[in-house]
């Protein structure tokens, strides 16, 4: 595989092509315009912003106190956990 790649570059250089041109032919690249790339990143980052904040909010909502409100930790015994089940 590596030798094939090297040979490909050698042939390209013999033909008088630059490294960039060889790469473009080799990968059959069609350059994506920067404007479209920027718009895609913009949409993805806006979605990530909302998702991240929703995840944080859900995490906060679901990680409330284990014991009932007003309970003193010293008054919690093993029996309380048995009652829970």
């Amino acid at each position, binding site marked *: 595989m590596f030798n094939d790649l090297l040979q490909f570059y050698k042939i390209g250089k013999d033909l008088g092509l630059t490294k960039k041109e060889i790469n473009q032919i080799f990968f059959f690249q069609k350059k994506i315009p*920067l404007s479209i790339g*920027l718009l895609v990143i913009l949409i993805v980052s806006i979605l990530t912003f909302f998702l991240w904040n929703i995840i944080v909010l859900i995490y906060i909502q679901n990680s409330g106190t284990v014991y009932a409100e007003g309970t003193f930790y010293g008054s919690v015994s093993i029996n309380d956990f048995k009652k829970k089940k």
Partner: protein
Amino acid sequence: MIFQSAFYSIALIISIIEIITGSIIGTIITKWLASKKKWDSLFKVAFLVNLPWILLSLILSILETFYISIIYMDFPLITINIFMIVIVNLLIAFVINTILSTLLVHRLYRKELNNSLFFVTLILIILYILMFIFAFIRSYFLVLAAIS
């Protein structure tokens, strides 16, 4: 209670100071860079380029206040790294802000997207360092307000 409202007011004042200083510094840097590159160096255009930053910093400061008040008032026993939430929000906002400002520069100055992207990134790095420092100070006062 008195201290709480005092700390909230301090946090609000810090937010206002942040937005005013950020917009002034941003506009000055934009104007200076534009004149250095021999682009159109109008004050109005430079201010418009900084408009997404102003809007995003407003949204972020409101979000920060909301999170800190929720976490410390409703769930005082939860240990959540608020600083991490703020940093992730800042990083995502930086990406959104860069793209929005790049599109604005591309439209207003009529320059190529590559050039506008480089131009905007330089300005926003300075502005976001400023925003980071202000967010740190503001969150300190917000936590004090929530726990007092």
